[in-house]
């Protein structure tokens, strides 16, 4: 096969994959938003269970990593800012970097590792054990039964988790600010709040919402396309993590560019 044929085939496969993700997302969104009006109510207990797993149980690790990321950001910014004599800007640098970029991205990566992989493993194992077939024979639609609760939990919890991560990042930055840049905790927080505009928070949350959609779609799609045999579940899980991280970064780039070019000047 020639190089151009390879590129063509890869492009078609890539587009088909994106199409399957869109179809899955559409099915889940329909079940979540339209289902209740069509007499097909969601089982919210399953969504709450998923929300606990996706959001609440991720709080300790998300807090720890975000705190450290905030501290690292402060140290890295201070390195340059000190030379310019603008060490007091460290609070603003941490706040904007965390809320616009690193908060959403790092939280998404944590959630991919914890939940995206778990979605793929859970659905993949169910596929291998004929549990997905069993759902079909019981007239239960797997997208409605399995994907919709995960979708709802993810689009609600990832923005919440991101907001918390932003806060923990600021707290991490404040450790440096208070000990090395002449801030008190109160003045650091005040400076942070002054530096942030609504748009910073909003762009971060919109991105985290889109990341949630991507993580759910990729995790579930990889689960549904698991081949026969238990070793395939491992492959699906790995594939879910790799594809989710790639797509999250792509979506991040698209939305960052979008926000940049639509920003008021």
């Amino acid at each position: 096969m020639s190089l151009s044929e390879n590129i063509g085939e890869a492009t078609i496969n890539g587009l088909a994959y994106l199409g399957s993700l869109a179809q899955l997302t559409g099915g889940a969104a329909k079940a979540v938003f339209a289902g209740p009006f069509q007499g097909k109510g969601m089982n919210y207990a399953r969504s709450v269970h998923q929300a606990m797993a996706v959001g609440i149980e991720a709080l300790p690790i998300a807090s720890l990593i975000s705190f450290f990321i905030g501290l690292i950001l402060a140290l890295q910014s201070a390195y340059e800012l000190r030379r310019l004599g603008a060490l007091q800007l460290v609070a603003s640098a941490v706040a904007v970097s965390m809320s616009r970029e690193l908060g959403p991205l790092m939280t998404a990566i944590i959630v991919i590792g914890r939940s995206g992989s778990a979605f793929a493993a859970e659905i993949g194992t169910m596929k291998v054990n004929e549990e997905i077939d069993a759902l079909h024979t019981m007239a239960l639609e797997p997208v409605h039964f399995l994907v919709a609760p995960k979708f709802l939990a993810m689009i609600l919890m990832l923005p919440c988790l991101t907001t918390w991560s932003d806060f923990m990042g600021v707290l991490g930055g404040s450790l440096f600010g208070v000990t090395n840049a002449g801030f008190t905790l109160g003045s650091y927080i005040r400076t942070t709040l002054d530096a942030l505009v609504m748009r910073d928070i909003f762009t971060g949350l919109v991105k985290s919402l889109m990341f949630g959609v991507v993580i759910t779609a990729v995790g579930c799609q990889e689960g549904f396309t698991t081949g026969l045999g238990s070793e395939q579940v491992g492959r699906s899980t790995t594939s879910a993590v790799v594809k989710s991280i790639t797509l999250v970064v792509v979506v991040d780039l698209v939305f960052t560019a979008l926000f940049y070019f639509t920003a008021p000047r």
Partner: protein
Amino acid sequence: MASHLIPKSESDEKPAGAAIAVRDLRVKYGEREILHGVNFEVPSGATLVILGGSGSGKSTLLRTLVGLERPSSGEIWIRGKDFAALSGAERDHLLKKMGMSFQQGALFGSMTVGDNVALPLREHTELDESTIGIIVRLKLDQVGLSGFENYKPAQLSGGMKKRAAIARALAMDPEILFFDEPSAGLDPIIAAGIDELILKLKKAFRMTIVVVTHELASAFLIADRMIVLDKGVIVANGTMAELRDSQHPRVRQFLDRIPEPELAAEIDYLQMLTGETPPQRR
């Protein structure tokens, strides 16, 4: 000869009276056709056993009957409707009248046995939890699993998993029950227990039962009628007595447990090893 057992095309006959009527059913995986125009009927309240070797298409037939595979052509008449052509709510309605017990049970590992049985009731009915609890205990009692509702499937033995799967299949009081290899992988005593359970269900509820198996002893015990599939074609279809008297070579080979003949010649064997041609039987 058993030519009288080989089904004729029944396309012109009305499927009334039969619980299931299958007409010229063809199923393809990609370009490969697995079922080549299958015709048969299952009388209401009867137990049909689909017998066949590995690769005969019997599992594909069962998966198509329960809606897991879409036929490339043909009809599956159930309760006066062509199940193969239905979609949406009508299809779901018919699916709720059917129960399926999978080969490995296919119980949801994250749920208890009781929750597995309760699932279709919770999803498809407005019954309150106390009523669902009563039905769950009743269904588990019917399959001999009283007191196991709080166990996880992983805590059950192979035979108990199959019984739990049958209880789940029974949850919605189906009119037709499908079994995929109910005794596969079980010791003879447990397998006999499953056969007995199938007979009990048939007698107690007058259910129409379709069983896919390759276990001859089990098949002859539970079946009213039997079809023998070979390479995607029905080679025999009749009552137990008719099948026993059948002289069709493939049926005889299966019933008398005669192994496949050796490859015709050394050259065939060599070609098979080198992958030049598929093995040809004498």
